[in-house]
């Protein structure tokens, strides 16, 4: 994690292009006659931890889903590490996706596989890793998320918090450059949230991975973020380092939102 986080340019779109890992330009996304993203400009520099906050339905999750190619934009361009998605050939998309990992709100572990197999499946079939190597690496990752003893369990035998930690290990096993975290604690029982957030704090601190989080956990956002973006109605209301956004928000909409959730 970079030490000069607080010196981040306030408007992310004015950052230098070379270090930009993810870039959205004038991206518009509509569902029916509802505009979820409205000409959004937004970028994330390599190694930064960026958190998106804002009310439900403000388009935060849609940004992650666009980057993961789970949905397509109606207008605008999206580039990852300089390569453009939409349009891109299947082969190009697959190459770009290798750089991105995602953790979902509802974990989405494969119930028909053991915990270990959930983590090794993609490294073996996508990256062509040997099974032994993938197994060894999966065990390391399970150790990192505190579940070294659960290798042979089925997801259904784990608590929500444990499942989410496996999902984090599964995403990390692909060694992505950027990890997308989509409200990863929203579906958890309150007492399980801390365990998952601790794992993520640990990852944020000890690796140089780029994080793009959508979260309603403001304490977590404050802790790990280099930059926080406040969203409303498909637009960025304001952005800046967490100290400023949480400490002295400039926009009335941000103040309203924060006073409602804190």
């Amino acid at each position, binding site marked *: 994690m970079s030490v000069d986080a607080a010196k981040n340019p306030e408007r992310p779109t004015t950052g230098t292009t070379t270090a930009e890992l993810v870039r959205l330009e004038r991206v518009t996304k509509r569902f029916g006659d509802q505009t979820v993203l409205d000409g959004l400009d937004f970028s994330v520099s390599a190694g930064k931890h960026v958190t998106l906050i804002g009310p439900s339905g403000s388009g935060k999750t849609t940004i992650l889903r666009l980057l993961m190619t*789970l949905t397509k934009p109606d207008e605008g361009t999206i580039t990852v590490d300089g390569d453009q998605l939409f349009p891109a050939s299947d082969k190009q998309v697959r190459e770009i*996706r290798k750089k*991105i*990992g995602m953790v979902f709100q509802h974990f*989405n572990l494969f119930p*028909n596989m053991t915990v270990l197999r959930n983590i090794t*499946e*993609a490294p073996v079939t*996508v990256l062509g890793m040997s099974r032994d190597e993938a197994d060894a690496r999966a065990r390391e990752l399970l150790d990192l998320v505190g579940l070294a003893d659960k290798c042979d369990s089925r997801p259904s035998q784990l608590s929500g918090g444990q499942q989410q930690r496996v999902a984090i290990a599964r*995403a990390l096993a692909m060694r992505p450059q950027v990890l997308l975290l989509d409200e990863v604690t929203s579906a958890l029982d309150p007492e399980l949230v801390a365990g998952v957030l601790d794992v993520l704090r640990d990852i944020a601190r000890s690796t140089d991975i780029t994080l793009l989080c959508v979260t309603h956990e403001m304490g977590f956002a404050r802790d790990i973020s280099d930059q926080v973006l406040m969203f409303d109605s498909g637009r960025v209301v304001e952005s800046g380092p967490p100290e400023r956004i949480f400490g002295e928000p400039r926009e009335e909409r941000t103040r309203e939102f924060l006073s409602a959730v804190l």
Partner: protein
Amino acid sequence: MKWDWSAVSDFLPHFWDGLLVTLQALALGSVISFALGLVWALLMRLPTRWVRWPVGVVTEFVRNTPLLVQLFFLFYVLPEWGLTFSALTTGVFAIGLHYSTYTMQVYRAGIEAVPVGQWEAATALNLPWRRTWTAVILPQAIRRVVPALGNYVISMLKDTPMLMAITVLEMLGQARLYSQQHFQFTEPLTVIGVAFILVSYLASLLLRALERRLVR
């Protein structure tokens, strides 16, 4: 009405022949209907309607015409086009084809019941579509549909007597032949009736065991 045990023992050798044929038809018919139904279900998910449309029409046609008509058609009409198969082969194929148009709907429901999050996780992990189907979607879909497929096995068993119509000597065929030769109807028909119950009971036990193994 009197019950003649000697007729039972006289009929038994024929009964065993018939039972063997019934079991063959059931086992092979099941395999064909399970495999072909899956093929139909997968073809119906292809993006091009040039595949979906003909598959839809053909399977709709097969599902909505009687099995007996299909049996006659395959047995008496195909040879006119130079395609001749044994009666049992024709019968097995007809049953398998007919029931594949039902199992395809079972598979479809099973595939649609796999949560969209599973597809999304497979995409996020960059799994190739082939691997997504074979390692993620189908194992979960098939697990869900085993009970429903099992019901069709029982239905198929009860439809095997139709093969009699194209000269296949399965259990009912043997019973009828024996009855007509000896003018004794009660014993052979009772024997095969009991046999049908036993076979369907054993089949359901087998399927239940399979279900338990798959659903964990």
